């Protein structure tokens, strides 16, 4: 089968791929290189994954007060996430219902209404059409117009742990079904906050990467690349937080099912029984207010345990990565171009800790970060390499024979195993084939 060179009869799907075509691109231990480069695959991803599926859109803490809004894009479409005066966060198409002008043109702000600059139509931040200038021109039909031309709400929207997800398809699996056991990762993150909620209010670094969006995402749970891609950090700055040699660490990788996967340091951290290994081995004396607040809510032992196991390193399919104390999301712009958005995870009220977290994010992440700048470069070179059509496949067989299934998913005790990638691709193919759209579907 050739996808890129496909000629012949009209395609059956909008993206020009026939049922089974995508399935043939993915095998248990390898995937076709064109999954990163093919425009038809990309179009189908936009439909199946980013429109029909659940995607992370925003965090409730980005719009803490009534009237707060942020603008985002879902599958290339402009959306507003706004908190109404009733306290509800609504995800709405950022398009005037009159003639289509993009209604809200700032990244963020606070406003009780949005007024279209083209003809002055005004929408309340709950989406209702609140004002139409020179209404007499619509004669007796005005009431109908006003009732039917509110902003289009995302067909489905749900939150978990403050993370707001949306789907542009009215029917499908619930968010809980989509998240599956990845809910545990969000739980693990918010457990670090004495208030039980985290704050993503520091702004998003916006990093343009010249590679496919899946390269950005799956690289985040690639335990193999660090010693090579990030060798300069280990050489120049600090050794890795845990050993990369499997026999010297209990770090594992996990395919959690449903496309979600992680590098799980918790067992290793528990073995070390040391707090803040995940935070540059910070001494607890440096953040006394945070320790006091955490012990107040979790108790002394509970706080110790929380600080030992720390935050997750978990990829939530398709576009959310909880990178310890950072959150990354991606916006695909085309087969070979992606914006990676990154923000630090702040803890409400913990200024001392948050200041450190900000500096750690700047050090590691984003376009000038000690880590991610190199991931961006390697990603760009990957895209350039994939321009070679041979070999047809990229290889994901590392650790295939040593994967073990347990109650948490499919795990491998060698963190350099490609177990997370195998889980990602298996689910990806199922989603693109339309096999996961109904409740109870398995991938």
């Amino acid at each position, binding site marked *: 089968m050739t996808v890129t060179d496909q000629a012949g009869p009209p395609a059956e799907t909008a993206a020009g791929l026939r049922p089974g075509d995508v399935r043939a691109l993915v095998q248990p231990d390898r995937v076709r290189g064109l999954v990163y480069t093919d425009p038809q695959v990309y179009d189908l991803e936009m439909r199946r994954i980013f429109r029909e599926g659940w995607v992370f859109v925003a965090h409730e803490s980005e719009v803490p007060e009534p009237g707060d809004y942020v603008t985002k894009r879902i599958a290339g479409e402009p959306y507003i996430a706004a908190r109404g005066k009733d306290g509800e966060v609504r995800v709405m198409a950022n398009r005037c219902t009159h003639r289509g002008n993009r209604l809200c043109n700032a990244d963020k702000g606070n406003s009780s209404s949005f007024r279209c600059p083209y003809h002055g139509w005004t929408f309340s931040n709950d989406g209702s059409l609140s004002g139409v200038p020179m209404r007499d021109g619509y004669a007796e039909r005005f009431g109908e117009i006003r009732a039917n031309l509110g902003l289009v709400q995302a067909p489905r929207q749900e939150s978990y742990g403050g993370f707001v997800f949306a789907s542009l398809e009215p029917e499908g699996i619930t968010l809980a079904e989509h998240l599956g056991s990845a809910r545990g990762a969000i739980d693990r993150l918010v457990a670090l906050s004495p208030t039980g909620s985290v704050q993503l209010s520091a702004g998003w670094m916006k*990093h343009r*990467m010249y590679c496919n969006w899946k390269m950005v995402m799956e690289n985040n749970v690639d335990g193999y690349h660090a010693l090579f*891609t990030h060798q*300069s950090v280990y050489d*120049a700055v600090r050794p890795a937080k845990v050993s990369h040699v499997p026999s010297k660490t209990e770090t594992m990788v996990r395919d959690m099912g449903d496309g979600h996967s992680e590098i799980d340091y918790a067992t290793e951290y528990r073995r070390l029984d040391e707090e803040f290994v995940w935070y540059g081995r910070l001494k607890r004396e440096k953040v006394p207010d945070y320790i006091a607040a955490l012990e107040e809510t979790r108790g002394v032992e509970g706080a110790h345990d929380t600080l030992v196991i720390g935050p997750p390193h978990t990829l939530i399919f398709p576009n959310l990565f909880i990178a310890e104390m950072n959150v990354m999301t991606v916006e695909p712009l085309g087969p070979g171009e992606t914006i990676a958005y990154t923000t630090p995870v702040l803890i409400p009220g913990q200024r001392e800790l948050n200041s450190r977290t*900000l500096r750690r994010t700047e050090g590691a992440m984003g376009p000038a970060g*000690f880590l991610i700048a190199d991931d961006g470069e390697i990603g760009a070179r990957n895209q350039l390499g994939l321009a070679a059509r041979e070999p047809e496949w990229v290889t994901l067989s590392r650790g295939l024979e040593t994967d073990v299934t347990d109650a948490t998913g499919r795990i491998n005790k060698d963190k350099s195993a490609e177990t997370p990638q195998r889980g990602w691709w298996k689910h990806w193919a199922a989603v693109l084939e339309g096999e996961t759209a109904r409740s109870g579907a398995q991938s």
Partner: protein
Amino acid sequence: MTETLSDPSAAALVDPALVAFIYHEARLADEARYSEWEALWDDRATYWVPMAPDADPETAVSYINDNRARIRSRVAQLNTGVRHSQTPPSVLRRTVSNFEVTDADGDTVTVASNFVLVEYRFAITLWAGRYLHTIRRTEDGLRLAGKTVHLVNAGGPIPTMAFLI
């Protein structure tokens, strides 16, 4: 970004030694002469590239917010030869102009300027913005105590920026 310039005519009077220092700093950055560039910095220093001109670094994340220790680490990383995003180094040339002294306090002077920087890597990338160089006069000569870079496209998205901006 609040800048005050009480007497616009003073712009013509920026000490040529300060301008020469800024040109020198720019050339070392352009030519990937990392250790020589690092040697320009004072013992206390901040290298800051915010995401908005009025950003508060205590509540907002920046692209770069290096203290002196992190400037040292950044240079050490570039010097490894395996900082892939700068291996090989981007070819860079920048023009710096429109010098104005915006602040002077004892031995420390802040000079604002505009810059245009052309980066060639996979393709040409154009960078531009406003520099604020805070320069300290010491017994050992001029030292860089602060460099703030307000990118015109700070709002992003911006491509990888692993070189010295």
